[in-house]
């Protein structure tokens, strides 16, 4: 994953460039207001950089010079949001398969049963999202993103809304995902403990710039 983007956001002048760890977890670390979420949104295609380049694997997602700007649905990324963002009108099952059904079966690298097993979703497979606890919701959100067999997984503080116990429960899952499915993960957080459990590859962001 190669990211090199510039964008003015109010008082914040974002100017970030880094390369991701191709095989594992890359952490985007920094205090709130540093522009972490903006960067991840740019990779997802939800926010347009003023200038720059973004590519994952061999695929160029954005290049201001060449006029490339793939829409989010063509980027082959999975995005786990801080608040889960499960579809309230769909069951857990339909949430999980929402993105999976949109890609050809030949491209399914991740199987539904595997994900359900790995994340322990089975017990609430047929429920509605509103009946789930915070931790359960986040597991479904991770599963939903994973099942699109993405080229990369973006996670924006996926544990922020959970208590310490749930966090400890979910962290090993996240570590296993990138290993078992060999999908690179870009992991945004402002909590060092989380990051140190996941990876050594840390991009430190402060006031819109990469510090280390």
């Amino acid at each position, binding site marked *: 994953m190669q990211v090199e983007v510039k964008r003015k956001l109010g008082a914040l002048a974002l100017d970030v460039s880094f390369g991701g760890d191709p095989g594992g977890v890359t952490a985007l670390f920094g205090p709130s207001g540093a522009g972490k979420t903006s960067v991840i949104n740019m990779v997802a295609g939800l926010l347009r950089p003023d200038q720059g380049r973004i590519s994952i694997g061999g695929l160029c997602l954005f290049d201001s010079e060449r006029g490339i700007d793939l*829409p989010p649905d063509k980027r082959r990324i999975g995005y786990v*949001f801080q608040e889960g963002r499960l579809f*309230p*009108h769909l069951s857990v099952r339909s949430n999980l398969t*929402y993105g999976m059904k949109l890609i050809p079966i030949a491209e399914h690298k991740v199987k539904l049963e595997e994900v359900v097993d790995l994340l322990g979703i089975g017990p609430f497979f047929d429920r*509605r999202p509103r009946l789930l606890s915070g931790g359960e919701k986040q597991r479904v959100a991770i599963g939903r*993103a994973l099942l*699109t067999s993405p080229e990369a997984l973006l996670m924006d503080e996926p544990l922020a809304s959970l208590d310490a116990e749930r966090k400890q429960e979910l962290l090993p899952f996240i570590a296993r995902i990138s290993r078992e499915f060999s999908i690179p993960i870009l992991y945004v957080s402002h909590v060092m403990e989380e990051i140190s459990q996941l990876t050594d590859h840390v991009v430190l962001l402060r006031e819109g710039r990469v510090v280390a």
Partner: protein
Amino acid sequence: MDFFHLSMAELEAIRLSLRVSTWAVALSLPLGIGAAWLLSRKRFPGRQFLDGLIHLPLVLPPVVIGYLLLIGFGRNGIFGSFLYEYFGLTLAFQWTGAVLAAAIMAFPLMVRAIRLSLDNVDQNLEAAARTLGAGPIRVFFTVTLPLALPGVITGSMLAFARCLGEFGATIMFVSNIPGQTQTLPLALYTLTQVPGGEQGAMRLCLFAIVIAMLALLGSELLARRYGKLLGG
């Protein structure tokens, strides 16, 4: 109890009203959803104008709308002559014209209700659907529209009720022909103008109340059930 026995003319008026209202709502619903979506989500030149145009039937006297329809959609009107020439379709003084008049009069109510619920749909969920590989049209039909469904139900019900009550534009555009364009309100009015019509008028009046209550209850029930499903 002969009082509750509807005469043929009354029955016909009720059936016509139900038919006109159902068609008017069914035909204008896709347009109403489209207009509501445009107004809720898009910023474009002429947006204020479109908003005003849609709301015009709410603020203009219905008779004025009827008159405009007569000018525009009469056999010699710009649209009317076109429709007649190419489709052999006449609207003026036909029940189909009553559908058009009712649809236009009810349109603002429908659009307002749908737009309100579209405003309340969390656009973050739409963004999430995009990242899962769904294009804009698929997102609309699988996320936006289902989440706005309570508003669509309410809007349809309001429009249906408004269509049932349509009087001014209808009588102006399609006149008051028994069995053809004489809807329930027109029949009721006619009955009050003839000696001995009081009983019939009262029957139609009661019927109007019953239909309106049923529509209200039905949509309330649907919307509540669906709201519960969403956990709202």
